[in-house]
């Protein structure tokens, strides 16, 4: 047999150690460097690296911002009053030597001044780190209503137009394509993203450049005057943990942009002569929706214009993406439409008990009336906004309650008692629990104006009444019908179990039979 001599063994162990030891070192070092950072910029010339080329440079921006004392000008050129977010150049093509010369020159200077400095020549591996380029932990910053308010209410931010009291003009502007200049019009402010897209469009800079130039430059200017300002580092805005540290203003006053409080949404253009009848208009509570949504962009996805400016009645126009007003408001596949967004709310546990079991499309002419309640004659006789306001105040005062004594207290379900004792269903308790959960939401109250309507969540397919027919009227004791209708057993269990599950009623487990009906002994 094979005999391993001692010296052979020693050599083998040495070989193994030779292979393994450097690897141990490597893994440990890579691990310590593996922390993702939001400020990592990959500097790589050309799309793909040649085999003979050094790996890309993982440039840590914040480290350099710190070294330059937050002075952008140390590395970035200025052009037409704004920084060019390219390294020490404006538009020129860049070469490897350009980076080497400029980076190393600065590092050498720093070293000479006995300051902490980056690698100099012949230390290739320090910048060109082998292995896969490190991922960045960069996260998008959401300039939400709270952040907007902080900026809007700041005393330090000064607008371009000093004659106007507020500071909107500091950031918001319009663009004159002929003179290629930006200007400001009060009351016509729009969201940055409407013009500044993620990529460059014609003359318009991408959002990244535009925002960095506007935000960072302003922050820097304020900081030099020793005024508390927003971050200058990448991390300050683009790190998830840092974002959490940004203070949130709890009660944000409404943004002021001459927007209406109430809107009458109609395909009919007020003032025009209506020759044909139009669908009844919708009284839309613009003010309430402003506070409930994250930003204007949730609904106003392209501009802050009125819906029917682009989405016309017939939808045959490019500016509206060939989406008609009807589709824009009712399309269930998008959360931007009224119906689509409201449907999302019905999935919440307070609503899902009933709504989950309701078919997606239920032909109910009554449901149109819930929103479409402004008649054309009304709109023509009065200012549409006022008509809408009146309709909305009427509706909010309309929420009708059902008297407690009208709700049966207990319902004994004994039609199926074969293996189990009859179930004593605490009807009033359940109904009141549902009323309570619906009452929490203004939206739910606006749509369920009558509590009696809530009964129809369980007593479905019946017209709204406080005395609905028994379940057995439609659901057979014999079992499911071949028309897809559940049998009585399936209907009861389906109604109760699904509702408990969807409304998170955890006290009653579906498989705990005896909880609802005792077993017959």
């Amino acid at each position, binding site marked *: 047999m094979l005999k391993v001599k001692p010296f052979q063994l020693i050599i083998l162990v040495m070989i193994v150690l030779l292979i393994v030891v450097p690897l141990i070192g490597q893994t440990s070092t890579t691990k310590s460097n593996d922390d993702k950072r939001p400020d990592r910029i990959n500097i790589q010339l050309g799309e793909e690296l040649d085999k003979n080329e050094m790996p890309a440079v993982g440039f840590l921006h914040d480290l350099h911002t710190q070294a330059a004392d937050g002075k952008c000008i140390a590395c970035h050129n200025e052009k037409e009053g704004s920084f060019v977010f390219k390294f020490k150049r404006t538009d020129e093509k860049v070469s490897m030597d350009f980076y080497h010369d400029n980076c190393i020159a600065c590092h050498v200077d720093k070293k000479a001044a006995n300051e902490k400095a980056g690698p100099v020549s012949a230390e290739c591996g320090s910048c060109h780190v082998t292995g896969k380029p490190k991922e960045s932990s960069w996260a998008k910053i959401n300039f939400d209503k709270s952040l907007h308010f902080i900026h809007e209410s700041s005393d330090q931010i000064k607008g371009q137009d000093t004659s106007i009291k507020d500071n909107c003009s500091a950031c918001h502007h319009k663009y004159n394509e002929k003179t290629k200049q930006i200007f400001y019009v009060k009351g016509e402010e729009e969201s940055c993203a409407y013009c500044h897209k993620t990529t460059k469009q014609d003359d318009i800079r991408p959002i990244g450049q535009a925002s960095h130039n506007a935000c960072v430059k302003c922050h820097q200017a304020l900081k030099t005057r020793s005024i508390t300002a927003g971050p200058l580092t990448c991390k300050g805005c683009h790190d998830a943990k840092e974002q959490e540290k940004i203070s949130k203003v709890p009660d944000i006053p409404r943004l002021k942009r001459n927007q209406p409080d109430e809107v009458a949404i109609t395909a009919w253009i007020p003032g025009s002569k209506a020759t044909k009848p139009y669908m009844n208009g919708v009284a839309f509570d613009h003010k309430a929706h402003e506070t409930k949504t994250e930003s204007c962009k949730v609904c106003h996805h392209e501009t802050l214009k009125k819906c029917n400016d682009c989405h016309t009645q017939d939808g045959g126009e490019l500016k509206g993406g060939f989406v008609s007003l009807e589709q824009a408001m009712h399309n269930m596949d998008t959360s931007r439409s009224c119906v689509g967004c409201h449907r999302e709310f019905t999935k919440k546990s307070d609503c899902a008990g009933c709504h989950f079991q309701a*078919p*997606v499309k239920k032909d109910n002419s009554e449901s149109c009336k819930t929103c479409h309640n402004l008649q054309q004659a009304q709109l023509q006789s009065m200012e549409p906004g006022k008509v809408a306001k009146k309709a909305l105040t009427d509706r909010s005062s309309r929420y009708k309650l059902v008297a407690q004594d009208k709700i049966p207290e207990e319902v004994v379900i004994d039609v199926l008692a074969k293996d189990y004792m009859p179930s004593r269903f605490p009807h009033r308790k359940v109904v009141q629990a549902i009323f309570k959960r619906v009452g929490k939401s203004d939206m739910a109250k606006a749509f369920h104006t009558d509590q009696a309507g809530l009964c129809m969540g369980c007593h479905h397919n019946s017209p709204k009444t406080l005395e609905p027919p028994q379940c057995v009227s439609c659901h057979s004791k014999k*079992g*499911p019908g*071949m028309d897809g209708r559940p049998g009585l057993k*399936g209907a009861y*269990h389906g109604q109760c*179990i699904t509702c408990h599950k969807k409304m998170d009623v955890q006290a009653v487990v579906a*498989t705990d039979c005896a909880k609802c009906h005792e077993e017959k002994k």
Partner: protein
Amino acid sequence: MAISRRKFLGSLGAAVSVTTTGALTKAYGASNKQFKGYPGSSGVLHDTTLCIGCRKCEQACNKVNGLPQPETPFEDLKVLDKKRRTQADEYTVVNQFQAKEKVFVKKQCNHCLEPACASACFVKAFKKTPAGPVVYDADLCVGCRYCMVACPFEIPAYEYDKVLTPRVTKCTMCAPRIEEGKLPGCVEACPREALIFGEREALLKIAKAKIQKYPEQYVDHVYGEHEMGGTSWLYLSGQPFETIGMREDLGTKSAPELTSGALSTVPIIVGLWPVLLTGVYAISKRKDKIAKEEKDDAVQAARVQANEAMNQKIEDLRAKMTKEKTAAINFEVKKALEEDLQKREAAKEKQAKTQEEQDTKTSVELEDSLEKGKQEE
């Protein structure tokens, strides 16, 4: 013979392949008239979105089939933590899957429209009844368990513990109960009506109507409508079927359909081989015979030719010898004549010493010319 051995075998092969592929196309042609199940046959629709995992179906199955009581009672829902399969004494099991949400799926024989188990069984112990259930006859079964290998759903189980009377067991769709007009045990017991029994066609309509009515709650697919050529048990799910333990790689062809192409050539091959081999034998035999005849002919011809040549030679020789003989005779005759003449002359000289010399000369000249003429002759 004009045909070579190579050519012959080549054409033979072509002929065989034409017959067999002809048979194959025929088999596939028949598949256009796909068997869609017996009209009016029954099935069960299992809506997995409704199942709460109460195991009442397992309990009912155990009861109606008179199976032994399990070790853990049916009320114990902890058994759901482990994935189970059907056993000899458990015709149905409920499994729990953690997809986007917890999903329970009942597993039992799917009662294929064209069952793999039945097609694998060579004693026809499994049979698809027109009513829907796939039933098993223990009296016919030889215990080969091919059915267990064939089933794509891993359903049939075997009574390994019964040494003398082992049977293959699986869900019967409660065929005896259906005949009595009752519901299958599991269907009757399901509190949620997650199992609906009825005509398969009607169930398909119900399933599709449910999908249409609640498009957000269901995957737009009825499992079993086409899987393995269709099954009597149909399934609805809110999660992709793969995530709730149901194979999506089975295709839409039934097991018999997949094998029928190959199997349909069996009779042809079995029928053709004796004829083919006899033919091949006869032809090769004939070829040998012909070759032998040809050889014999050639030998005969060669022999005749050799004889002729020999005769010719002999003849020539004979002619030559005759000629030589004649020549020798003539020579001898002449010699004898000459000798005779000399003798006679000598005698004459003696006699006619008196005679004139002129006379002698003439006589010699005459003699010469005579000889010459004879030689020329």
